[in-house]
């Protein structure tokens, strides 16, 4: 899998953090501007896949730190759990909940169960794409 291209390797090193940051940016702005968990997840997955192509599987796994399958499970759990808070308020499952929190130094931040759900989607998309990609890439050796 190692392409042995110096340019790609160097670019991969620098692009990975940038793309990951960009994916987070897409994730958080998604509710008002184009973006959201699905798109952000695809960008993040693409970033890691780029890294995979420029380096090798072992370093891609290392840079991920967690097994992408755990991302799948974690994302699914988060997405399901994000539907629960409404139940405690006597509303149907998945009713959106909003909280306004004042964070010192930043000001007022709107938090919501919807955001949690979107993060869950993000994690599932990253996990799914990377599980497939890494498995296929490893199968070649």
């Amino acid at each position: 899998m190692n392409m042995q291209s110096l340019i790609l390797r160097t670019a991969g090193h620098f692009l990975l953090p940038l793309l990951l940051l960009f994916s987070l940016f897409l994730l958080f702005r998604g509710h008002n501007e184009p973006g959201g968990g699905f798109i952000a997840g695809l960008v993040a997955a693409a970033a890691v896949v780029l890294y995979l192509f420029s380096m090798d599987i072992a370093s891609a796994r290392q840079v991920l730190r967690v097994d992408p399958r755990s991302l799948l499970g974690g994302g699914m759990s988060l997405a399901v759990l994000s539907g629960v808070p409404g139940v405690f308020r006597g509303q149907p499952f998945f009713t959106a909940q909003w909280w306004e929190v004042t964070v010192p130094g930043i000001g007022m931040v709107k938090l919501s169960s919807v955001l949690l759900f979107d993060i869950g989607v993000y994690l599932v998309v990253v996990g799914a794409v990377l599980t497939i990609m890494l498995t296929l890439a490893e199968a070649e050796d």
Partner: protein
Amino acid sequence: MLYAILSTFLLAALAPWLHQLTGRQSGWVLALLPAALFLYFASFLPAINAGEVVVLVTPWMPGLDIQLSFLVDGLSLLFALLISGIGFFIVSYAGRYLEKSRDLGRFYVLILSFMGSMLGLVLADNLVAMFVFWELTSVTSYLLIGYNHEDLKARKAALQGLIVTVAGGLALLAGIVMLAIAGGSYELSEILNSGDAVREHAFYLPLLILILLGAFTKSAQVPFHFWLPNAMAAPTPVSAYLHSATMVKAGVYLMARLNPSLGGTDVWFTVLALFGAATMFTGVFLAFRSTGIKSVLAYSTVMALGTLTMLIGIGTEAALLAAMAFLLAHSLYKGALFLVAGILDHEAGAKDFLQTGGLRAALPVTSAFAILAALSLGGVLPMFGFVAKELMLESVLGAPGWVPLLALLAIASAILGVAVAAIVGIRPWFGPRVETPKSPHEAPPALVAGPAVLASLGVLFGLGPGLAEGGILAAAARAVNGGVPVDANLSLWHGLNWPLAISLVSLVLGLLLYSRWDRARAVLAWVETAAKYGPERGYDRMMDGIVRVSEWQTRLLQSGYLRYYVMFIILATVAMVGVTARFYGVSVGPLALSDLRFYELTIVAVMVASALFAVLSRSRLGAVAALGSFGFTVALMFVMFSAADVGITQILVETLTVILLVLVLFRLPGFLGLSSRLIKLRDASVALAGGGMITLLLVSTHNAREFDSIARYFIEESVPSGYGRNVVNVILVDFRALDTLGEIFVLALAAVGVYAMIRFRAEDKS
């Protein structure tokens, strides 16, 4: 009430752990719950006997109008008391009986789950909730019959029981939906008050047939009786509990429960009385010619179930009271006898009556209670079984029709019933000592407690029938009678009348038959061959047929070639859409082609070109690249129609798809043109049909406006209720979050599938 039922499931979940914690005493510890439940249900007794009906409601799915509501009246309370009371003895018994079994923890899980399901079934007021519990009892019964899962016979019997009862359950589901339509409610408490509306409804006959199919399969009525004796492959506590005292009575419960709204018609009487009487006779006849301890008991259970069905069908007030009394009497003596059968197996190794004889000295306590229970089974004075049988005979003689036939079958059954009782009550205990497989010895207290209490209750209620009647039976009969108190009484001494005469005659003839038992069995050997042509053969034929059909269609559809799968999917879709289109008609309205801009045409041209290139290319990489370019033009389309999110997603997915294909391409062999001209032509026509159908669909939907578009709602509500300006995202994560959840679940499943497919193949190779 809800917590009472949930507690059984909770304890079921904890049971394996508690079992490890408490070891040998686990049976007693876990039996505390049914004991507590029994006391809890008993606390309803004063109110119920005072004529109250308690309805407890917990909202469950308010959107669908489904509530978890419970109905406590005499009938459901009688069942609940039986389930929890006998459950206490079963659980404590099983703790000792299955002591050496490796899977005792699992057994507790199943038996407690069953107890919860059965309680839910009899207490549910909502038909849907009742149905769910009904099916749960079938499933737990399946798992319990197949408890010895290494035994092929047990697995086969488990599957047979499941398929017969679940097939009936399916009919029942259709039946209760129709009942809810006819009765105007899903709540039993309301349906029971709209009996006339149901009986006069056009659905009455079909819904009656469907519901009775469910009840008859569950309660092993002829011709579905064959699964019950086979179910004896289960451990004995299970047979005692599910297949005698409780689960098989669920069908009887249902008929009794619905008697106020379905009963009272000629069809009801004819079907129930005739099928019940036939079942009664078939059961006792087959019991008489069996020798296996459990199969004799199982067939006599079939007889009892038939009797109950017949009594509910007769439907006079005396018959309803008789049914309730018979139900209680049967649960007491049959529960005791099954537990005794378990003791015979456990302490003497005997599974067949021919292996037993003269055991009274070795098992003095067990034999005493077994004889008491058998006397009740035979309907001998002064047992409770006698009281129930007298009233049964009396109501048969007072039936609204078919009296000669019903009476004949009832008398014949009474005679054979005495003989069967003698087989159970005399054969193992008296006469010359027969060498048993194990040297027999008295059972420990945990095993004797159940038979002792149940059999003693049979004597107690026999001597004081008013105790049982005032305690619960009158209230139960009133519930079955639609809330009207029944004008009948239980008593030990009815005076000199026909039922008493029949009882005496049957006692003499029955004992005479028993003394000729060995010869009678030889004479009845022909039944063995006849049974091969019975309903069980139909069941086997049906199962073989299902296997053959599925083999055939698997061979046809599951070819293992991707191209055929794709072809079947496309053709099936084309066919289904085509039929629908033909049925409803397709209108292709005027298309405003003049509005097309020049850049739109350019994109379409690129699309067509890349599609053609993908099909005609001789290089695989070229085809992949062409598909990619096709995808990007689609994304461009989205952007032009200002669907930025969809466009971005499309681009990203296209990119990743190309990467994916590149990863896979390495693994594929060289590109060869092996397809003949004919096959290419076939593929082309499938593709054209699929594409043409989609085009037609799109063009026709362009003009179709069957409903108002929901788009306006989403656009208007996005900011005020979703707090987001990106409508697409608000729809995805808020308005239709459940859909998105389903989609990411599919995504996760696909990833796991790919992982498993590739990993496990790699492992196989190495």
